[in-house]
């Protein structure tokens, strides 16, 4: 297989995006971002809302963290602080987005605003920023990785939301309804995603 560095710009961008979204799905293959996924996926439209917000934040913070790491932490030899710095960048960015949305569009704020605090604690976002460092990505490739990872999370939560909406109408035992049956659903979906694993190697 052609090494990533020798590939054309578009094909490497696409490859990283697809592999981050499907074969290495952050929710289904690495099981990050599970808590907010279980909490918010009761309905399709809320799932979509949170999914889009997470995708946006993941892609942007992956790019931001890449810049901060490469041009600030590495030259200053402060790599060991990267966890803290990444967390602060993500949290601060989320806060900033919240404030901007609040002032610009009240409608968007009302539909998206409630998810923003949830994003700060979403371990998938931090995970993407950290995994990105393990690979020799350029700035745009890091952005593709963030975008793909976010899209993978979006896809997974949207699917789960759709399934849950239907399941809620079924007559389930009281104890199983809610988180219980959702876990079963995600378990079966995870089995399917295991089939994707290893299909694309970067």
């Amino acid at each position: 297989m052609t090494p990533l560095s020798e590939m054309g710009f578009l094909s490497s961008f696409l490859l990283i995006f697809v592999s981050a979204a499907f074969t290495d799905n952050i929710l289904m293959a690495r099981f990050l971002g599970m808590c907010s996924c279980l909490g918010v996926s009761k309905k399709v439209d809320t799932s979509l809302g949170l999914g889009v917000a997470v995708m946006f934040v993941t892609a942007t913070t992956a790019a931001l963290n890449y810049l901060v790491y490469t041009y600030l932490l590495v030259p200053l030899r402060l790599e060991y602080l990267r966890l803290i710095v990444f967390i602060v960048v993500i949290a601060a960015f989320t806060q900033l987005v919240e404030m901007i949305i609040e002032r610009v569009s009240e409608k968007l704020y009302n539909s998206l605003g409630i998810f923003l605090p949830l994003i700060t604690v979403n371990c998938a976002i931090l995970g993407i920023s950290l995994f990105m460092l393990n690979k020799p990505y350029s700035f745009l490739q890091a952005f593709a990785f963030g975008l793909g990872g976010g899209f993978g999370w979006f896809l997974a939560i949207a699917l789960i939301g759709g399934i849950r909406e239907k399941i809620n109408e079924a007559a389930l035992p009281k104890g199983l309804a809610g988180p219980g049956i959702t876990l079963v659903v995600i378990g079966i979906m995870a089995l399917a995603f295991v089939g994707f694993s290893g299909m694309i190697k970067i």
Partner: protein
Amino acid sequence: MASTYGKILKDGLLVENPIFRQVLGICSALAVTNLVVNTLFMGFGVTFATALTAFTVSLLRNYIPVRIRMIVQVVIIACYVMMIDILIKAVAPDIHRFIGPYVGLIITNCIIMGRAEAFASQNKPLPALVDGFANGLGYTAVLVAIAIVREIMGFGTVLGYVLPARDLWWHQWTIMVMPPGAFFMLAILTWIARARLVKEEAK
């Protein structure tokens, strides 16, 4: 006063168990519950971090601006975990090789954040410490329960000791070792726990 602490303990361990009732800390519950030993390490780390963070957040609760309280909480959590991580690495490098991979999982464990937000930010330091401790224990208890089943079914061992019947008739379930197995186990446990709670509430 003693009864208050008793209630906080009972809430954290059973009534308001972080995993069953609050649905928090699921990511790490899936990642590390295939072997009991790993689970104990993880549980210990989370209990410790939750208690310490809850205590600190509670101390600072009157000074933290509401708007950025989450950022502050995450920073406190991450810093504690990292400091402990570096210390262990320096003092006991062999133990660190075992628990190193858990560090990231502990920082992003939403139980720590959830308790800091729900309890510590409104209560005094000592009750907050007890609450963090109780929730950590409740989390550990559930994880160990899952891990025992997964280890027996997946590896045929308990705490690394091979069960006598394993090689005679037991075929190990690979699926139990892999993450989907954790989902199914967690679902069954949640079902049992919630069904009992529903019954109690009906009384």
